[in-house]
């Protein structure tokens, strides 16, 4: 690698600081390497594709290579004269109704993650689902999606999914399983199921809930355990503490003027993030009613990146901060004594702001924070009068409220005590996701009969006597509640590829009432509907929601007792290093580890791909003498784990963040041996925040593939931002930053654009950098996965990337996100250098990329100032795996090697809309063409349309004062423009 680093090298923080103080005004930086001016960094940037090809390391030398190349070129020319192979057409025998070949159909369903649903519309091409969109009718998505939903298509067609029922490694049949389970359960009947335990995910499905109750009725002594690694334990316990009742909390960010996030990544994680982003972004328009977000957090998240004020505080100290805030606001008699002065200033300022917005503010605590922090947040909301307005309590969506970790602990104890004779694991992978001290694998081995239902033949399946492949949600009938309580009936888009069974079918079989999932769901609902069932059924399937099932708010009184206990003792002193475990933003607890789209998707802040790392602040890294990619040994409570280091500006001091979901051994070909398994030093007692961790250098290094340093834009005015007051004074601030040449300053003749003129705006004030658009683009445009080594060479193929910039102090920088697709320049530098006319300007202003003409000179990429062109150095696309062929969008060419590609503005969607319009003899209506990225965006930051139509949304946004062109001074006249970001900092904390 060109970036070999000296093992003894340390991070020179002094240089970073000096470099930062030298610069004046707003300045942006992308990585610490850039600031320290490490030799070689500039040279690397200067290259077009950094770290590209350590050229010819093979035995073949350059001369030989050219000879071979020449010969193959000559042959390649001749091959153009060959005929196409004969193909067959296989028509239907009896054509299904409604299917028109080449025209997709859309079906509503829902995606459950951790038992909570997101309403979706799935595009189906002749019976195979190819693309997922949000269901506009569904409160949880309102037409948008997150990265997980977008990537679910690849999950469905994953060739590594478990494909057969197996027992002790042998292929068996479903019938054999039903017989086996029937037999063991018959044995349990005498004792009322005293030895029977069932381990499942959070169940929000009314049907499955009823089935589980039936199971308990049949075996009254059995125990149901719930293990949901996307833990909401702290939130549930905290709510119980505060209100003495089981309740879920919903936030109404659209109505909140001031939001305080206490280590809460409400925009980037959690079950309701799509709705959170949607609501939150409606209040980020500087033209009116802008909200203010304070983020107190340990490691930078997308929430912190969007915040108006961000304070890095170690996760263990957030509870103290919450207490101090409550003490200040509610004038409690006891306030924490050892609050540092810096935090105290923040507490005063935030409390003043909150007090000014009683009833229209939100305090939200993070899922991995302590229950007490959650209770403090509730007390704060209660004191501010937010409960019932911006913070709404509802009955829990879980059929049975259970604390996951306690439940799993209890099961592990029972297994160790030999009390479990039969264990049914219904979905999930507890062996892979349980904390190390539960020794789940070893204890599982003591259970005489254990069966597992799951999508993968994973770590848990391997240790079970029986494994049944689970049906993917796109193959399943079922029902699920979303975070607001709305019920969706899930309908399959395709018959199970591998004869998978739903959890409901397995439970039915266990009850001795074997039935199809379709019958189970229908029979459940049939008994609960007044009126004509079939009509109701068709309506709910069509709409994707059961109308009126969203939860109404409940009223609960705040308790007082817990507060005395919580404020009685001083919080422990912050000494030593803390280790914070977080769910990975891309693979969660590891359930998506075998999904290449998610593995290769750069993490929102670190821009790491294909790995997790111990995230440290620059100062902590300097103190410990470690640099990026150093492998360190973390030890806690007698357990050790080796992990590479990644330095994150803005991380709290003395705090290490490690993401879960990696280091898996039986995830599949994609996810095996990627990253390190954080669960190996995790304990059930302190599953999220651990104090007193030891860190030791090992002297070894581990290469991490990041997209951070690629495509650097050399510190020009790329992201433009102002504070709200600056914006109010000078709305045109973004224009004042650079001089843009006059329109006619070009040697080339102008393009007339008589019909449509497609253009896009991206609102940087509302974009949170959630990555949904990037995966949506992958799915829509058949973009291949290239793997870690190729990413490390800068060869990732994403047509749309999200650049992340830092601004200001390395200890606590402001973080910016900027999505960068092809700019579709009117004066496009790429077009004029292509020797074969493979990239040309269309009459509607698109930069067309013609794959079949491209010969791979890469001149266009070389000449593109935005570095948005991607080259197929190898045959990245999988041309052989049958199941993956089903995932592809039939409307987009699948590219092979040697071809350049880039964002097309989803030209297939434009074509479709144009054809429809022309058949109806009209022009394309505004909103008829929505690009994949714009459709997925929960913040509605991306708007696409016709610039020649003055009434179109995009034309109006282009006229906005904040509209600016990226590198507009180059006179490229990009069609993609940005609305400059505006933040709303309060005067009280300026400079803080």
């Amino acid at each position: 690698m060109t970036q070999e680093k000296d093992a003894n090298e340390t991070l020179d923080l002094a240089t970073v600081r000096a470099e930062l103080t030298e610069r004046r005004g707003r300045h942006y930086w992308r990585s610490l390497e850039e600031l320290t001016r490490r030799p070689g960094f500039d040279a690397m940037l200067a290259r077009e594709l950094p770290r590209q090809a350590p050229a010819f390391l093979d035995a073949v030398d350059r001369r030989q290579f050219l000879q071979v190349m020449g010969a193959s070129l000559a042959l390649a020319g001749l091959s153009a004269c060959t005929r196409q192979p004969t193909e067959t057409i296989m028509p239907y025998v009896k054509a299904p109704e409604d299917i028109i070949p080449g025209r997709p159909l859309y079906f509503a369903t829902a995606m459950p993650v951790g038992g909570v649903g997101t309403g979706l519309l799935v595009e189906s091409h002749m019976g195979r689902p190819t693309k997922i969109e949000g269901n506009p009718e569904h409160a949880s998505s309102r037409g948008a999606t997150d990265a997980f939903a977008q990537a679910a298509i690849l999950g469905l067609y994953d060739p590594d999914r478990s494909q057969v029922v197996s027992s002790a490694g042998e292929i068996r049949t479903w019938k054999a399983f039903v017989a086996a389970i029937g037999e063991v359960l018959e044995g349990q009947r005498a004792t009322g199921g005293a030895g029977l335990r069932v381990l499942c995910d959070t169940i929000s499905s009314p049907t499955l809930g009823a089935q589980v109750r039936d199971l308990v009725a049949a075996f009254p002594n059995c125990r149901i355990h719930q293990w949901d690694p996307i833990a909401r334990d702290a939130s549930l316990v905290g709510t119980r503490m505060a209100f003495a009742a089981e309740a879920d909390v919903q936030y109404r960010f659209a109505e909140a003027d001031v939001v305080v996030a206490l280590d809460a990544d409400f925009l980037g994680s959690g079950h309701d993030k799509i709705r959170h982003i949607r609501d939150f972004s409606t209040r980020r328009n500087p033209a009116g009613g802008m909200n203010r977000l304070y983020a107190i957090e340990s490691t930078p998240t997308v929430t912190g990146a969007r915040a108006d004020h961000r304070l890095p505080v170690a996760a263990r100290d957030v509870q103290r901060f919450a207490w101090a805030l409550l003490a200040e606001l509610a004038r409690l008699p006891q306030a924490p004594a050892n609050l540092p002065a810096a935090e105290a200033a923040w507490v005063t300022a935030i409390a003043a702001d909150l007090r000014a917005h009683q009833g229209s503010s939100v305090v939200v605590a993070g899922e991995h924070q302590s229950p007490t922090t959650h209770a403090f947040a509730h007390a704060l909301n209660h004191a501010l009068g937010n409960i019932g307005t911006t913070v709404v309590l509802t009955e829990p969506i879980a059929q049975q409220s259970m604390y996951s970790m306690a439940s799993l602990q209890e099961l592990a104890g029972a297994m160790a005590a030999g009390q479990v004779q039969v264990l049914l694991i219904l979905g999930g992978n507890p062996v892979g996701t349980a904390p190390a001290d539960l020794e789940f694998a070893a204890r599982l081995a003591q259970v005489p009969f254990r069966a597992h239902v799951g999508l993968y033949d994973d770590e848990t399946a391997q240790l079970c006597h029986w494994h049944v492949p689970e049906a993917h949600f796109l193959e399943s009938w079922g029902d699920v509640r979303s975070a607001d309580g709305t019920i969706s009936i899930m309908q399959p888009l395709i018959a199970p590829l591998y004869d998978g069974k739903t959890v409901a079918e397995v439970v039915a079989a266990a009850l001795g009432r074997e039935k199809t999932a379709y019958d189970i769901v229908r029979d459940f609902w049939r008994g609960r509907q007044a009126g004509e069932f079939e009509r109701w059924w068709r309506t709910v399937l069509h709409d994707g929601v059961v109308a009126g099932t969203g939860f109404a708010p409940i009223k609960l009184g705040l308790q007082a007792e817990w507060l005395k206990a919580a404020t009685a003792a001083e919080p422990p002193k912050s000494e030593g290093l803390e280790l914070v475990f977080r769910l990975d933003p891309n693979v969660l607890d590891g359930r998506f580890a075998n999904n290449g789209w998610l593995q290769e998707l750069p993490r929102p802040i670190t821009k790491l791909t294909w790995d997790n790392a111990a995230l440290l602040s620059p100062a902590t890294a300097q103190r410990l003498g470690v640099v990026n990619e150093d492998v360190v040994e973390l030890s806690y409570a007698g357990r050790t784990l080796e992990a590479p280091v990644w330095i994150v500006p803005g991380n709290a001091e003395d705090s290490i963040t490690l993401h879960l979901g990696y280091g898996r051994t039986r995830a599949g070909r994609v996810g095996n041996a990627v990253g390190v398994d954080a669960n190996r030093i995790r304990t059930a007692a302190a599953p999220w925040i651990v104090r007193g961790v030891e860190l030791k250098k090992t002297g070894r290094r581990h290469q991490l593939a990041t997209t951070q340093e690629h495509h650097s834009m050399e510190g020009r005015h790329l992201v433009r931002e102002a504070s709200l007051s600056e914006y109010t004074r000078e709305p045109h601030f973004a224009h004042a930053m650079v001089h843009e040449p006059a329109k006619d300053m070009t040697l080339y003749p102008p393009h007339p654009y008589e019909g449509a003129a497609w253009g896009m705006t991206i609102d940087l004030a509302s974009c949170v950098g959630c990555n949904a658009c990037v995966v949506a683009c992958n799915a829509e445009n058949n973009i291949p996965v290239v793997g870690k080594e190729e990413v490390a060479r800068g060869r990732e193929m994403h047509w749309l990337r999200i650049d992340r910039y830092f601004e200001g102090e390395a200890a606590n920088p402001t973080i910016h996100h900027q999505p960068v697709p092809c700019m579709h320049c009117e004066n496009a530098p790429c077009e004029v250098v292509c020797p074969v006319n493979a990239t040309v300007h269309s009459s509607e202003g698109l930069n067309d990329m013609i794959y079949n003409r491209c010969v791979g000179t890469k001149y266009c990429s070389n000449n593109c100032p935005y570095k948005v062109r991607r080259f197929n150095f190898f045959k990245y696309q999988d041309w052989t795996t049958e199941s993956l062929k089903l995932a592809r969008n039939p409307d987009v060419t699948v590219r092979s090697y040697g071809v350049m590609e880039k964002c097309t503005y989803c030209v297939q969607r434009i074509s479709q809309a144009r054809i429809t319009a022309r058949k109806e003899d009209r022009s394309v209506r505004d909103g008829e063409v929505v690009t994949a990225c714009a459709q997925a965006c929960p913040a509605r930051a991306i708007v696409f349309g016709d610039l020649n139509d003055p009434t179109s949304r995009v034309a109006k946004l282009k006229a906005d004062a904040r509209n600016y062109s990226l590198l507009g001074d180059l006179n490229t006249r990009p069609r993609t423009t940005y609305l400059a970001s505006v933040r709303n900092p309060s005067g009280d904390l300026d400079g803080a």
Partner: protein
Amino acid sequence: MPQVFHRSTNTIARVSIFGTLIVLGAAGYGLALINRSSYVTQAGIAHEQPVQFSHRHHAGELGIDCRYCHSSVEVGAKAGIPPTQTCMNCHKQIWSDSPTLEPVRASFRTDASIPWIKVHDLPDFVYFNHSVHVAKGVGCETCHGRIDRMNLTWQQNSLQMEWCLDCHRHPERYVRPKEEVFTMGWQPAGDQLEIGRELVKANNIQPKTDCDTCHR
């Protein structure tokens, strides 16, 4: 000083220079011919099919409308190959024991598709849409020829890009009134160019020649 080269060298030089040019030109011309030949384009070559279906009989002699079988031609990108069910609609009653139709009956019995050989096979990087062409007055015959006179079906035209572009650049040479799209053997009542120009204006025909029209 004596001449190094004999005078005949001049001739040899001229012959070899011009000869090379001629040979290269001929080779280029030859390659272009091969590329346009029916060997490459498959135009004019009838394909043996699993069932020797005759368009001449069905569309010509019996006068069945194109859309009876190719039912999605007005709504979708693909004209659509009829499901076996469509064949059986009639052949349950007539020729119901003909040995020629055994593959059709077998397909209906076993629920297995009839594997028709694709006659009009565009490259995978080309996206053609039937519906918009039909809607704008491009007759079936214009591209597919006199299907009503073909026993076994063949591809009438080259389907090469220059052929597509010819019509996209000069639609007036080819378009016909919308109501005559499915007519075989339609003749313009007068000058095609004149009628064509009027149709182009009346039907708002604006064929695009941008690359993204067909390649995406």
